[in-house]
């Protein structure tokens, strides 16, 4: 069953690693708040997982297109709402 993970922690928070460990192929991760700061760090994202990032949180933290890996989907709150409804289960970290 595909899941959406709402991840708002910085990459060195214990929950960030826990989230990646609980993510399976077919799942999605939506990065919000400080979660978006993981994008320019070049960490290994789990395979087969779609990564979204909230544009307002990227913008606030000075992360422009040049800082982002090419596979990231930048979304607004409207799309975040759609995402939470398009998977059967949402896990909030």
């Amino acid at each position, binding site marked *: 069953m595909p899941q959406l993970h*709402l991840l708002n922690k910085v990459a060195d928070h214990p929950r960030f690693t826990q989230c990646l460990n609980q993510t399976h192929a077919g799942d999605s991760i939506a990065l919000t708040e400080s979660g978006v700061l993981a994008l320019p760090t070049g960490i290994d994202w789990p395979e087969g997982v779609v990564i979204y990032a909230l544009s*307002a949180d990227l913008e606030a933290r000075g992360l422009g297109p040049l800082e982002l890996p090419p596979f990231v989907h930048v979304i607004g*709150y409207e799309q975040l709402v759609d995402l939470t409804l398009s998977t059967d289960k949402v896990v909030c970290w």
Partner: protein
Amino acid sequence: MDSPPPQSFALVITGAPYSSQAPQTALNFAEAAIRAGHKVNQVFLYGDGVHLASNFASPPSDESDWPALWRVFIESHQIPATCCVASALRRGLLDETESRRYEKTGANVTAPYAIAGLGEWLESTLNSSRTLYFNPDH
């Protein structure tokens, strides 16, 4: 393109304003959900999230007043909003009834918030398409 059928949300906020971004993220999310035609069944403040219900919050005038913005939003969309009683009393968030019961000199929780128990959280969770937890990012 057909729009998807309307759905409903229960929103649990556990991060306090001015020590986390949780109330803002939750508000932006709730506004977008309602714009898309969905319903917010319940806003449940839990743990440090109860600070959002304080009428006494007085941020500097050049900063966003998150408690006030949330109150306006809840009132204009008539969303049931609950401040968890166990979390609230410990942290000094009292309505008139609790203030009298504990013989305190003021009450900082008023409508649209009701002080009630975890039953409200559970009931709204069971009756909503999705329950989202807006936790602090620390």
